[in-house]
């Protein structure tokens, strides 16, 4: 009975602290809500439209004008005309345009006379999405222009329309994007970024909450409320925070997979489980950091450094297998990495438990981390013998 009573007492105490320091709610609910609004509105288009592409038309023939018009008419592109290559290059270097198409002088005449004029294009690969999409766009358009020329010649030779297609395009590739069929950039990033922000918030808030007891010298009061048991003290605190963060987590999952209709092959219930595991694992990490280093000012700085790295280490942008081997090992130390693996099995392929049970075990290992440092934390709470700030 005493155990449950004490947990209740610690939880009530925690709620009281939260009421007095609005920072707990601001730091959790408001931060996550802001990021959710940011990622869901910022990347709303899914794929960017009307990327500026520079065209330097030295030919000024019906063919070149037609090419520029067609490029402009694509959803992805918007043509900006330049008189000289110099002007276009300067604008590309200052990031105003994503690519330059050079149409050589006399291209139309050369095509007519089968002299094969060379069409040159320049890409700005420093703005990744813009550069890569413009690349795809220009390549498609130039192949279409090429096909149009072939078709004219073949028609003139009297080849029938069906046979023309077979000659212009003997092999075609039909690409299927599994899990994100519209190549939607918003789905791709938000799926991991939002849980990542949540995990970051959990680590920071919990380190702060546990560190504040040391900083303000209230740790003995906490222990006495918990009946001198560190387990009860942690359990009481975690009860409040787990409830709070699980609430936020469930809302995020609902927001993404139900309200915003992100594609999901598996079940949303499994993702609920995943996000709760992510929260528990992050709580484990937070207790581990503050227990290992019971100096609030250092623990929080270290926690912040660690949390920010998780985004890169999860490997959803640059896959982990590309990183050097020692970094690959390090990536395993981030709960978000395992959440990402679980996510990719469940949301993209819908494998169910059989596909991701190992990740569950990995995440549960993080939950056990506090056991290692609990005794140390308790001593720090009793003796308060570390620098307080």
């Amino acid at each position, binding site marked *: 009975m005493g155990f449950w009573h004490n947990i209740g007492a610690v939880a009530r105490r925690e709620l009281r602290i939260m009421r007095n320091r609005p920072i707990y709610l601001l730091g959790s609910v408001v931060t996550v809500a*802001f990021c959710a609004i940011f990622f869901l509105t910022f990347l709303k288009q899914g794929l960017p439209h009307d990327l500026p592409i520079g065209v330097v038309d030295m030919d000024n023939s019906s063919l070149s004008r037609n090419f520029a018009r067609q490029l402009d008419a694509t959803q992805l592109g918007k043509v900006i005309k330049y008189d000289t290559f110099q002007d276009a290059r300067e604008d590309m270097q200052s990031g105003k345009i994503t690519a330059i198409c050079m149409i050589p002088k006399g291209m139309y005449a050369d095509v007519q006379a089968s002299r094969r004029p060379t069409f040159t294009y320049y890409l700005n690969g420093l703005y990744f999405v813009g550069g890569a999409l413009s*690349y795809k766009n220009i390549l498609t358009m130039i192949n279409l222009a090429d096909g149009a020329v072939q078709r004219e010649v073949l028609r003139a030779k009297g080849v029938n329309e069906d046979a023309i297609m077979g000659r*212009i395009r003997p092999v075609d590739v039909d690409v299927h*994007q599994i899990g994100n069929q519209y190549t939607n950039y918003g789905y791709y990033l938000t799926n991991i970024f939002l849980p990542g922000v949540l995990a970051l918030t959990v680590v920071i808030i919990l380190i702060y909450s546990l560190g504040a007891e040391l900083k303000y010298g209230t740790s003995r009061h906490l222990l006495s409320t918990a009946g001198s048991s560190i387990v009860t003290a942690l359990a009481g605190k975690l009860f409040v925070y787990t409830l709070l963060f699980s609430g936020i987590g469930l809302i995020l999952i609902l927001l993404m997979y139900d309200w915003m209709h992100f594609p999901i092959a598996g079940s949303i219930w499994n993702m609920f489980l995943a996000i709760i595991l992510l929260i528990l694992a992050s709580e484990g990490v937070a207790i581990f950091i503050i227990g290992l280093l019971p100096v609030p000012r250092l623990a929080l*700085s270290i926690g912040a450094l660690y949390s920010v790295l998780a985004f890169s280490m999860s490997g959803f942008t640059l896959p982990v297998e590309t990183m050097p081997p020692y970094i690959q090992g390090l990536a395993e130390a981030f709960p978000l990495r395992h959440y990402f693996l679980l996510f990719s099995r469940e949301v993209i392929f819908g494998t169910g438990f059989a596909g991701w049970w190992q990740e569950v075990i990995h995440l549960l290992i993080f939950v056990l981390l506090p056991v290692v440092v609990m005794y140390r934390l308790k001593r720090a709470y009793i003796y308060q013998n570390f620098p307080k700030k």
Partner: protein
Amino acid sequence: MRKDHYIKLWLKDFWGIFTHELKLIFSDSGVMVIFFLAGLAYPILYNLMYLNGVLSETPIAVVDYANCSDSRRFIREVDATRECTVKYRCVNTDEAQTLMRDGKIRGYLYFPSDFGEKLARMETATLSAYADMSSFLYYKNILLAANQVMLKEVGSIQMERYAAAGFTGIQAESLIQAIPYEENNPYNRAFSYSLFLLSAILLVIVQQTLFYGMSMLVGTAREENRSFASLPDKLEGHGVGRVVLGRGAAYWLIYMGISIYIACIIPAMFGIPQRGEFWEIILLLLFFVTDCVMFSMTWSSLITRRESVFLLFLAMSPVCLFLTGFSWPTTAFPEFWKWFSYIFPTTFGCQAFINLNTAGGDLGTAHDQMVALTIQTIVYFALACIAVYAENWYLHHKEVLQEKKRELAAKAGVDLDEDRRIIAGDDGE
């Protein structure tokens, strides 16, 4: 004579505030961790992570129902590309899908049984490529490999077909590719992930660590009942300018050093292209660091406790990174976020750095960003002065304000004293 006296006093106050701030910075371990451990180690860590920014040899499988010479050649050529490697040959699509689910392959190619027949009949033969979209780079590699091989195959098959139709030699060539094209990707040849990300992330690290560190100190000062903004006593409310400039100079000095390390030495260590003129980069850093200092001074004045900055603004780091437009293009920003991005120095600083350093432009290409940074600096300097002024006003009227707060709390039925006791750990029970 009086003017001379004023300048002397100004410099003396400035020097006093400047050295005092430096002492505060160097005696705070948390701030040292943020400035020096994060400022110096983060760039190295990010470089190590993204050292090899090009994903090669993505494992894929093939399901070849056609089993003809054409499909086999296609598979061989895909295997030979840098992008993909054919790891498995599956008898049916189920097998390939299982492999993909297990993460053993990132995609597969499927040749339908009529692939060879269609080619023989001179029709269009279609093959399908399936890609795992958990990382866009897998998709990019599979798409790129399949398309490259497809274009090459198209060329050689067309050659045969036109030969059969009576076109040969140059005539056939000019038909197959009437407009040959030449591709140039001058700044990032292999579309390397590290180049584009690191160019943007380096200056974000400068801004964020400076902001976090300074906010920690401001919060600490407030907790210890000091203020970041205390004016020299003898001036009776004047001298806002020297407080802002004196404190700013301390951070500016440290951060010029750190930012030169981050923007000049780190790229040299890891072989990131440095195409800009050295002095132009330094000039950019002068503008950028000054702006960051003023930016941090303005926003840190809102911080009341040491830790609040992490609780409130840590998640802003990735947001800042996106607002630089390094990935999602600036032209596609929704209107609101475009305006929102003007809050941060990195929005302009990173673009200017990419243009100057990585794209190798001259100062003209960073002109707009430099102007924006200057305007931002002026605005933030004014705001920082206002913040110092407001803080002093608050300090002088503290008693009255606290009385008001107590009255409000009494109205709302909250017992502030009891709450304080509980937080302070006194046993109220």
